[in-house]
């Protein structure tokens, strides 16, 4: 039985517009037997936070191209991506990349 996990989710670069414009979400994930993975977190976000047009955020089982995922200020690619196991107090950031100039 894993301990409850609280994480700080942040959305930026425009991704916050899919979440009522709210950039910071302090979230307590429900207890579950195994550690929470980032894959499960994405499902949880889709079911609990995403208000509209989920395809602008999630495609298949991962984030759509053009969104960077950061775990504690590092690119999730360095941390195991979908298989990363969340630790209590982790900071997970989803940033849309910008193209304007």
């Amino acid at each position, binding site marked *: 039985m894993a301990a409850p996990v609280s994480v700080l989710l942040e959305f930026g670069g425009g991704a916050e517009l899919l979440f009522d414009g709210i950039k910071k979400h302090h979230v307590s994930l429900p207890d579950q037997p195994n550690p929470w993975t980032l894959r499960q977190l994405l499902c949880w976000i889709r079911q609990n936070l995403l208000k509209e047009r989920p395809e602008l955020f999630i495609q298949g089982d991962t984030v759509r191209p053009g969104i960077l995922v950061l775990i504690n200020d590092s690119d999730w*690619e360095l941390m195991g991506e979908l298989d990363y196991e969340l630790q209590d107090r982790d900071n997970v950031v989803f940033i849309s990349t910008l193209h304007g100039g």
Partner: protein
Amino acid sequence: PDLDKRALSNADILRFSRQLVLPEFGVTGQLRLANASVLVIGCGGLGCPLAQYLAAAGIGRLGLLDYDVVEMSNLHRQVLHAENRIGTPKSQCVAKSLRDLNSGVEYVPYHTMLSPDLALNLIQQYDIIADCSDNVPTRYLVNDACVAAGKPLVSASALRWDGQLTVYNYQGGPCYRCLFPSPPPPETVTNCADGGVLGMVPGVMGCLQALEVLKIASGIGSSYSGVMLMYNALDGRFRNIKIRAKKPDCAACANASASVILKDYESFCGSSASDKCRMLNLL
């Protein structure tokens, strides 16, 4: 013709005295800068401050590329343009403004869109490339041509209250495609016309971009290879993010040659290299 400055004149020493006195830069840094060429892709909100500060600092040659002409809606952030130059090519307008500030820089305006045919040859003629463009197809094209030509790419972007900056393809670091192998779905891409942008945000990002160009050109090296700077102007916060290393399976890096350059970036990205259509719809 190659840049070939071997020594500083007395006028140079007077003009650049405040940066010559910096031990990390000094006469060596100034001479390296004077012998360096930079291609600025996009003479808009980022390109204006970038070109302005590189010209002031004494870069040797500044290529200035933009297909567009000055419009009234540019003037809130594109600070090298002017009311009486509306309708004139941006690239020429920037060159004209900067000649007054530093006539010792060689300005090369290109009033053209960057095409796959043009990109590699043009980029090969410069030491450092600054991506100040405003659309996804151009960003992929610039990246691929920089990887093919082996040139460092200092890339910045700005939208609404947000800015991002990183350096690609530099000293073994990742390229734009390492980070973004697939283009974003077109319906998720917002441009400055649709989303808006506060003028000081490209101002800040363009100055920071110029600084990284100067650090690379003068041999100091960049702080942003494998690191992305993210800025939000509403909360006044900057964040340095560690990004992934170069990917062995990257479509560009795995075969860094002219063959990585696509024929058509607009269809690859599903969007236009000009934001004109959307602008017209908005107004």
